[in-house]
């Protein structure tokens, strides 16, 4: 009987002469594959290069009008809101989700901060806390529906977008709280509007907060277990679950973090426009997704670096201001951003091929 068994293996005997190094890791050769794998390892490289190139290009075309501390810090101020929201969006997209409700959560949080202070006379710090909690709660609802009820993120946040926006209008009765009133009675609401002036460079606290937020998120995503789990969940949820990651917990906390960050964006929004205005931020979801995509984070999840989203938001800001200073029609900005979005996704696909 054992003879039969060994005969069964005979067909493989010639293999013993084959190379034994099947499972060893080979190094890639050639320039293009090397670029491909470099991008694979450092996904924020493309948007960084595009950002630097666009700054240099506009600098050459416009000279000191653009290439000045004033104009460059102005871009930071102009992108701060979209930038902060894009940070939240990045987290969600890394888990292969999407959050269409970011702008609505941002505005509702700012309205809660404003109305709590002015309608109920609650001290500003407590109102701000309430606004931040409101954003986190909205995020929790999103996350719970996605993780526990297993609804697609697109549907959940599409619904929440409408719900939160309607709540915002119903609750605020579309009342604007004016900048002058806030300044007189609750200046803390405008905290992120404070400025650090260095020469002609102007850094608002909001812009600084955006930069710090990205640094913090980059640290969390790369250096903590939770961060790696965010990637693992977005990459392949089943696999993450099987390898022992509590995926539902990761998803819920990601949406909660997104809601909290959006609430901070709402606070920063008050600093930016001075007033509490329920009609702001209507396009924040699309603008943040744009920044994330240009920043090289894959909409399919699990790939990309959060810093890319910052670069993506800055690229949009540089193009907007640069083209305005060149006197171009605003439509050119949209056209170019459209081109950038499609190119970014094409590059993403190409990088993915590196893995095959």
């Amino acid at each position: 009987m054992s003879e039969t068994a060994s005969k069964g293996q005979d067909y493989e005997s010639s293999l013993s002469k084959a190379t034994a190094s099947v499972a060893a890791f080979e190094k890639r050769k050639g320039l293009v594959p090397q670029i491909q794998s470099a991008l694979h390892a450092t996904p924020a490289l493309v948007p960084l290069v595009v950002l630097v190139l666009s700054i240099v290009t506009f600098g050459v075309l416009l000279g000191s009008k653009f290439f000045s501390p004033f104009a460059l810090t102005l871009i930071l101020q102009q992108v701060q809101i979209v930038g902060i929201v894009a940070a939240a969006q990045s987290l969600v997209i890394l888990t292969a989700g999407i959050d269409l409700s970011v702008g609505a959560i941002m505005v509702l949080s700012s309205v809660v901060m404003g109305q709590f202070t002015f309608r109920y006379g609650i001290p500003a710090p407590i109102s701000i806390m309430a606004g931040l909690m409101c954003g986190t709660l909205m995020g929790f609802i999103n996350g719970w529906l996605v993780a526990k009820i297993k609804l697609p993120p697109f549907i959940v946040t599409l619904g929440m977008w409408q719900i939160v926006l309607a709540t915002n209008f119903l609750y605020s009765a579309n009342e604007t709280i004016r900048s002058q009133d806030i300044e007189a009675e609750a200046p803390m609401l405008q905290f992120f509007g404070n400025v650090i002036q260095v020469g002609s460079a102007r850094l608002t606290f909001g812009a600084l907060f955006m930069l710090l937020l990205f640094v913090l998120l980059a640290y969390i995503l790369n250096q903590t277990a939770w961060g790696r789990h965010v990637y693992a969940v977005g990459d392949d949820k089943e696999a993450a679950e099987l390898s022992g990651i509590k995926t539902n917990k990761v998803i819920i906390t990601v949406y909660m973090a997104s809601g909290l960050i959006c609430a901070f964006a709402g606070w920063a929004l008050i600093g930016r426009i001075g007033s509490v205005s329920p009609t702001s931020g209507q396009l924040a979801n699309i603008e943040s997704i744009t920044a994330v995509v240009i920043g090289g984070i894959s909409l399919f999840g699990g790939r990309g670096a959060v810093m890319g989203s910052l670069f993506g938001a800055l690229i949009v800001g540089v193009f907007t201001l640069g083209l305005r200073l060149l006197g171009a029609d605003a439509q050119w900005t949209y056209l170019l951003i459209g081109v950038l979005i499609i190119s970014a996704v094409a590059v993403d696909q190409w990088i993915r091929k590196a893995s095959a």
Partner: protein
Amino acid sequence: MKKVLMGSALVLTTAALSTAALAEAHNTTACLITKTDTNPFFVKMKEGATAKAEELGITLKTFAGRIDGDHQTQVQAIETCIADGASGILLTASDTGSIVPAVQQARDQGILVIALDTPLNPIDAADATFATDNFLAGELIGQWAAATLGEDAADAKIAMLDLGVSQPTVGVLRDQGFLQGFGIDLGDPNKWGDEEDDRIVGNDVTAGNEEGGRRAMENLLALDPMINVVYTINEPAAAGAYEALRAIGRENDVLIVSVDGGCPGIANIADGVIGATSQQYPMLMASKGIEAIAAYAKDGTKPEPTEGKDFFDTGVNLVTDKPVDGVESISVQEGTDRCWG
């Protein structure tokens, strides 16, 4: 027992139905279709229409697009009103050209269609238009700004904060009116941005909100930091522009003018954020509109436009605390009494 109950229920239902039918026959139905129901301007419009309809015993149904520019919902609303047998429709169109076939369909059914605030394109596609004279509104703030600057008007540096790149009619009228009032050659009065006067630093778009106003102002300040006159499409944009100016410490040496006359805008005049604004009256538009529908339902009379204009002018007033000679204005106090939003 059961039968008796059912029988009486049936009688009651029939009675209720016939009462409803009777009421229908005696009652005039009117529709109000606005761009959105979140903008205070339209909220006020709805209030005016509701109050007047109640007074005249007219059934009012209101519809609104979800966002500004939501054409589809407005078309659906017109179709619903036709099906409902309304006598008249008050409409602020989001898309003034594309809505025309739907409006025509309603008029073919004998429904009186009145455009509120925003004229249709062409203006005679509606039976009548009740609106602010937006060109005049612009002209008033232009004249006021020029008179306030006096001799310096000749060297003014003007920022034009407009509504959107698609150049909606209302925005063009206000913009061009302002330039006319300020004494600047318009070029083509049907579009902004083609003027050649050096005093205009540039045009930028705001979407009519604070964030857009601030961004647009920053962009133009980057072109020329010494801007000293700012035209804004509405008061939220003006508030945003003010924040941008304040950020570079120039809020006190720039004149900001605007159009609308909403309550926060008037308060901003009192606080010196905005120099002057042209106040319009949405409640009046709506209540006049309801009156016109009531008259039409009674004996078929259609409203007449204001003499010399192709629309019914609901009036506009310049509101400022710093009146100038030759430009009529009302005080902030009076503006506050009549403000909306």
